[in-house]
């Protein structure tokens, strides 16, 4: 799609968010913050969260709406990583090994999640929300009872149950971030990280353009018509859910290596709504989403998140940045729901 055509599709929220970002950058400039450092960080933030946002695409294009049960995919990724860390994998090779474990776990959990999701015809969003929410306590049982042997993962006292927060410095913190970094006049480009994310994005584009992807998009556009033309809806939908779960599992691996800490228990829930609203800021509708929308939406939202913390600390109260973040994230989702409803009414 041509970039000019895309810009013409921008609606009010994109303009407002873009304007807000420009104002924030201007204030940051006035406060003598280093804009190059902030820009470098924003690039890392983009790649860090981008894969999680990408994972929403297969389900969105398959007519299953926004995946509010993203925490299922995230948690299965965390299980895979924990298995890897328990074996003591480290470095880039260890990171890739962890991703393979994560994919394996995500395939199993994704199949179950997909079987549940296809029962919820037309109500995938609300159903996914509660499947995601009830999956977290189940996994809390797992985290408490799982017999891991690596002492650095377990509670220091008692030695039973995993810690809520595991430091990754001895394993693979920042392996992708520091891979093939090119520096051009102060701006650091983490090429390794970008190549990895670009590879995933390319895989998604290729799959959506394949025979399977076209079938999926046909389901998203008109389910009855797709069924009449001989598409096996349930099979395709379950595969889309598995695909989404696998990408989300890889996404949390990328996020975690950049963040440096593995957060278990209830932490995955906090990542769902920012990811969904990033996709909506990029201009995705309730029916269709594209990879470039993911890139633009994630960059806008994450840059605002990044800038709001130091600015709020200097100018206002520290709490205000957290509040404004959640107002933006949830406000965008509400706006998209209302706009989607209006389209439905006119159709």
């Amino acid at each position, binding site marked *: 799609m041509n970039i000019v055509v895309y810009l013409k599709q921008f609606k009010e929220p994109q303009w407002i968010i873009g304007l807000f970002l420009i104002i924030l950058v201007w204030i940051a400039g006035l406060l003598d913050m280093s804009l190059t450092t902030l820009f470098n960080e924003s690039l890392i933030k983009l790649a860090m969260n981008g894969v999680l946002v990408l994972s929403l695409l297969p389900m969105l294009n398959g007519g299953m709406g926004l995946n509010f049960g993203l925490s299922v995919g995230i948690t299965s990724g965390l299980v895979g990583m924990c298995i890897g860390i328990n074996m003591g994998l480290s470095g880039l090779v260890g990171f890739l090994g962890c991703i393979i474990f994560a994919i394996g776990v995500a395939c199993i959990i994704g199949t179950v999640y997909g079987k549940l999701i296809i029962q919820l015809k037309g109500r995938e969003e*609300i*159903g996914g929300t509660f*499947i995601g929410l009830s999956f*977290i306590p189940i996994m809390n049982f797992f985290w408490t009872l799982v017999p891991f042997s690596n002492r650095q993962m377990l509670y220091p006292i008692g030695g039973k149950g995993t810690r809520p927060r595991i430091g990754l410095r001895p394993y693979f913190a920042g392996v992708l971030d520091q891979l093939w970094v090119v520096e051009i006049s102060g701006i650091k480009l983490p090429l390794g990280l970008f190549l990895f994310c670009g590879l995933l994005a390319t895989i998604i584009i290729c799959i959506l353009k394949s025979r399977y992807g076209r079938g999926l998009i046909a389901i998203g556009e008109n389910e009855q018509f797709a069924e009449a033309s001989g598409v096996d809806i349930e099979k395709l939908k379950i595969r889309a859910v598995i695909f989404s779960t696998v990408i989300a599992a890889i996404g949390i691996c990328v996020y975690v290596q950049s963040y440096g800490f593995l957060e278990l228990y209830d932490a995955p829930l906090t990542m769902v709504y920012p990811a969904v609203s990033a996709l909506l800021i990029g201009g995705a509708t309730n029916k269709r989403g594209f990879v470039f929308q993911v890139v633009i939406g994630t960059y806008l939202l994450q840059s605002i998140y990044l800038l709001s913390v130091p600015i709020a600390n200097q100018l206002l109260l520290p709490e205000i940045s957290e509040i404004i973040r*959640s107002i933006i994230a949830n406000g965008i989702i509400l706006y998209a729901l209302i706009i989607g*409803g209006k389209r439905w009414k006119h159709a």
Partner: protein
Amino acid sequence: MVSYYTPSLLVERGGNMLKMQSLIKHISTRFVPLLFIVCSIIGLLASGLSVHFVANEVLNRFIRNGVMILALIIPIKAGMGINFSVTVGAMCAQAAFISVVAMDINRFKGISVLVIALLMSSVAGYIIGLVLNQVKGKEMITTIIIGFLANSVYQLVFLVCVGGLFAVPNRDILLSRGIGIRNLIDLVDFRGVLENLLAVDIAGVHVSVFMIGLVLMVGFILHYFIETPFGQEIRCVGMDAEKSNKVGINSEGIRIKVMMLSTVLATLGHLIYLQNIGMLNVYTGHLKHEVFASAALLAGGATIKEAHIKHAFTGLILFHTLFIVSPQAGQELFNNPALGEYFRSFIAYGTIAFALIMNLKENDINT
């Protein structure tokens, strides 16, 4: 007028298919309450808690959460699913308490809390109704997002604006930096004012007759309210909004009124809850009420299409019995109270997820 087709009617029509349907419907509506009864009995035996203690707690929670659950029934009747934005009603109740304490109002405290709360909640309900009219078919996810958004706005007002943008007479409730309300406000003037009316002890169980009567009365009023012409219109909109528009019912207006009523009831419920507890957790007191209330309603056998007053009352007792015994049961069985806690939240969320999945399956059979 519209009549619910009952399982017996289906059997009369004959045919194995229909018998199967009614059987499935019977099992699926009874399955959740039965599961809760079995789990509660196992939990009660495993925890070793005395029946006295559990009965006391259940009665207390019946009073605390009763009206909040009743607030969920009317939106279900109007075909809007579960109203997860009852948290907004809870926030209105808390905001009313905070403003009365902050303004140093000395006379008619209770009345002013009630008036402020009702005014705020009707305005909030009106706005929610307007939003929900734009998102027909996706009301439930929208109410969840509205709840989150309202929570952020509530935090913005009481953590930043109070003291920052406008001053308040009572400076004792502000944080030491002068901006924002403290985490905890003592509602000593309101604590248990209604509880101790007509309280009796029956075999060691403290029973507040007035409060139980109040909750039951709200239930009965709602029950008869559904039979009034306005209630019939609500049910009609719930069955088919398009057709009720054609017979001259303003379905959008009805939906707005339904949301106002639901939010006002939720506010009343939370007022009762707060005066029972006597403490106000400013930033966390309103959270998760929507999940527990809807899980309790569904535990009583309601679905997202059908809910009655009896579902609310049975659900309250079943859900809260399980809720009280499970941490202690986790401690006794696995030597770890956290497991009981996880089981509790799994029960709350899992019940809702299960009801959503089951209900849509039922729809498939019907159409």
